[in-house]
């Protein structure tokens, strides 16, 4: 544990999900886990939470608090959860180093936008040599919210970069030839043919780990989606499917991860952002009727964890895993969870029939209007992985580190909201 700083990106986060109580010891901290002193300053967060939650027991940071029965007790003090989360992270890191032993020479296709940001850091912290392949549009390294100066400095000194455009297949192959990467994490691949130059350049590759999507599943009346279910060759994610098929045909050990909706700080996809913007503006939240469509959100840090779990893991060779949150959620439920996460009052939710409107090219709602969720049981059983974040805790993390700080990726656009509210005769709330 020496030198293991607890304020790894994600220190200022919460811990075990609500199902911890049910699953018993699987989610609880191991006995005798070391105490850590969290370095992050909680001053500003402290203020944010004043009066909103139970007493913040600052003196409990780093101590193992009694694990509450999360299923039925009031919200746990935020600092208590931070302490346990930090300890859990430390344990994860130790295990990563201890198990599977050797440090790997890893290439990440991507790594500067969202998933890769967190994955790269976890891999570097676990002692691997990590190189990012990007066009260089975004800075190669950028300090994450919640990441200490020290951590960021260690990370940026260790991570390497190859600049290039992966769509330039010849160039890509040339740049990778002779590099000797043992593992490739393909985080931003879209089409099967994009994989070929990489495989050609790296004949000694030990594992190709691909970020696919649960969008490949064929829509079904029976849910949840399991990895064995039928896939849809006509889906918008056809390219992801083609990539999986291609990898299978190539003989290289490969693993594919299928996330559902990913969320978390720095999310560039307007999932939680869409809800937070309406909550911030004090606006009603228009949800396609009936609002009980069930979907699933997965925190980006849990996803990064899963990616680390499959590294050099023979059990994972040739396997596909659904990775997302432990519980599913209705559309109405997401609105309520975002409100809880940001400390807003219960939102006004307005249901409408999308068929009654012509929104043109605009999306009136960020999620597909259907049930869409997967079982993560295979990953939990085979990879010894489990999501750390419950939905509210994860959205709180996202809010505190990103959207609640006033940062957004897209400017708020309420034009479709206004169309809906006008037609339904609901008084439009004027944004403050």
């Amino acid at each position: 544990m020496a030198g293991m700083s607890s304020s790894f990106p994600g220190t200022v986060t919460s811990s075990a999900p609500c199902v911890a109580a049910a699953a018993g010891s699987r989610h609880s901290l191991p006995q005798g886990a070391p105490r850590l002193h969290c370095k992050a300053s909680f001053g500003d967060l402290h203020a944010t939470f004043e009066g909103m939650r139970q007493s913040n027991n600052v003196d409990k940071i780093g101590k193992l608090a009694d694990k509450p029965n999360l299923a039925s007790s009031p919200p746990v003090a935020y600092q208590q959860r931070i302490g346990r989360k930090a300890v859990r992270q430390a344990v994860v890191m130790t295990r990563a180093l201890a198990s599977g032993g050797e440090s790997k020479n890893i290439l990440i296709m991507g790594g500067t936008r969202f998933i890769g940001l967190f994955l790269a850091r976890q891999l570097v912290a676990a002692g691997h040599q990590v190189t990012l392949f990007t066009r260089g549009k975004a800075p190669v390294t950028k300090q994450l919210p919640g990441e200490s100066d020290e951590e960021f400095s260690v990370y940026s000194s260790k991570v390497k970069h190859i600049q290039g455009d992966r769509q330039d297949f010849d160039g890509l192959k040339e740049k990778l030839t002779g590099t000797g990467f043992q593992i490739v994490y393909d985080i931003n691949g879209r089409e099967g043919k994009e994989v070929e130059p990489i495989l050609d350049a790296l004949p000694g590759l030990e594992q190709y780990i691909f970020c696919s999507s649960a969008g490949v599943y064929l829509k079904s009346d029976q849910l949840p989606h399991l990895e064995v279910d039928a896939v849809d060759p006509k889906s918008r994610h056809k390219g992801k499917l083609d990539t999986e098929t291609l990898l299978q045909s190539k003989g290289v050990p490969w693993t594919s991860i299928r996330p559902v909706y990913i969320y978390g700080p720095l999310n560039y996809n307007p999932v939680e952002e869409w809800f937070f913007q309406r909550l911030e503006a004090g606006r009603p939240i228009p949800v396609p009727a009936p609002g009980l469509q069930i979907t699933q959100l997965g925190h980006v840090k849990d996803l990064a964890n899963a990616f680390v779990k499959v590294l050099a893991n023979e059990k994972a060779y040739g396997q596909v895993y659904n990775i997302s949150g432990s519980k599913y959620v209705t559309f109405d439920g997401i609105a309520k969870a975002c409100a809880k996460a940001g400390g807003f009052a219960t939102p006004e939710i307005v249901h409408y029939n999308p068929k009654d409107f012509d929104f043109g090219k605009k999306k009136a709602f960020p999620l597909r209007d259907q049930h869409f969720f997967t079982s993560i049981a295979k990953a939990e059983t085979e990879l010894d992985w489990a999501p750390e974040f419950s939905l509210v805790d994860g959205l709180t993390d996202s809010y505190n580190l990103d959207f609640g700080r006033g940062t957004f990726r897209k400017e708020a656009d309420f034009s479709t909201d206004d169309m809906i509210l006008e037609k339904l005769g609901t008084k439009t709330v004027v944004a403050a």
Partner: protein
Amino acid sequence: MALSQSLASLVLIPCSSSPSSSSSSSSLAVAASGQTFRLFLRSGSSSSSSCCSQFCTPHLSLFSSFLTEQHQRNGLRSVKRRAAGAVWNNVVVRAAAAAVHGQGESKKKVLIVNTNSGGHAIIGFWFAKDLRAAGHAVTILTVGDESSDKMKKPPFSRFSELRDLGVETVWGEPADIGVLGLSSFDVVLDNNGKTLEVVKPVADWAKASGAKQFLFISSAGIYKSTDEPPHVEGDEVKGDAGHKIVEDYLAGLGFESWASFRPQYMTGSGNNKDCEEWFFDRIVRGRPVPIPGSGLQVTNISHVSDLSSMLTLAVEKPAAANGSIFNAVSDRAVTFDGLVRLCAKAAGKEAEIVHYDPKAAGVDAKKSFPFRNMHFYAEPRAASTKLGWESKTNLQEDLKARYEEYIAIGRDKKDIKFELDDKILESLLTPVSV
């Protein structure tokens, strides 16, 4: 000698007389070199049960070669040779049988206290059969009188099937369970009570008469509704729910092992209550199927064999099952609209779905539709992680079989009045003024 040493872990206890039979272990007697060894295959805890499975198969060959070695080395006289040979065969047969019937666990005496009506009645029927297939002894106590009219309906009308399998079928009141002349049991399942008042006499008697394991059929209906489905074991339940009060009482009674199973809607042959039949009734007559709300509501329609396999696993792994709540459902859920489609496919017909608002139509949704008008969705996560249980059912296939039976009993010809359906359809024709 080396072989006997390696077999020592199988607990070879030399003895000259047959030991008193312990209900929690099976034993094999072997005569060799003038000494009788009684081989105890320990059972009762999951860890030793799994150990037994490892002992049984690889060591069986060692054991038989041990006998042969002893046999040759000591020059057994012909009488002992015959005895050894005969008993050796016995060892082979019984060990093989033990291996087949669940890796060496002991056989249990199980009592099922079964309700005489309703959606859960079918559980006892299938569970009894599964237990018999696994070699356990079963008594099923049905509430009430054998002569009651309720016994003319399935599954009770088919109890001869149980008796043919060696199940003892008796009738009586659970409140009188102590005086019904029942022997003691290793395992008692209460598939009857919804309140403490009804279950307490059964539980108390089971404890007093030495039952080691108590199982209870509860209900997933006690979960509090949530924005984050599915219902998972450990989620909040309604505090005043009768089933919950029973569960808490059982937890405090001190059984070696107790568990509660929370089912939802079940399908299967011998069902006492309609499930998919409601859909077939309309589809087969070419009537529209009225579905309240959007039809996106998700629920579990589980084939009862998934429940009985889960219960049987709990009986065979009492330590693993101890102290646990289990959602007794299969691993897939279905939407209301989806269920119509699956039933239509099973029937080989088209179905027309019509959505309606029960309030606007002036009907009580509880009467106009067989399932709760909301998401009612649970997952069997505890069974999977604690018992290693897996669903073996396929709803589409099961509905096909159910449809065949539906036709075979002539229910498609039955004259059914669709009063509520007609009222609903009427209301949809009337334009609603805004």
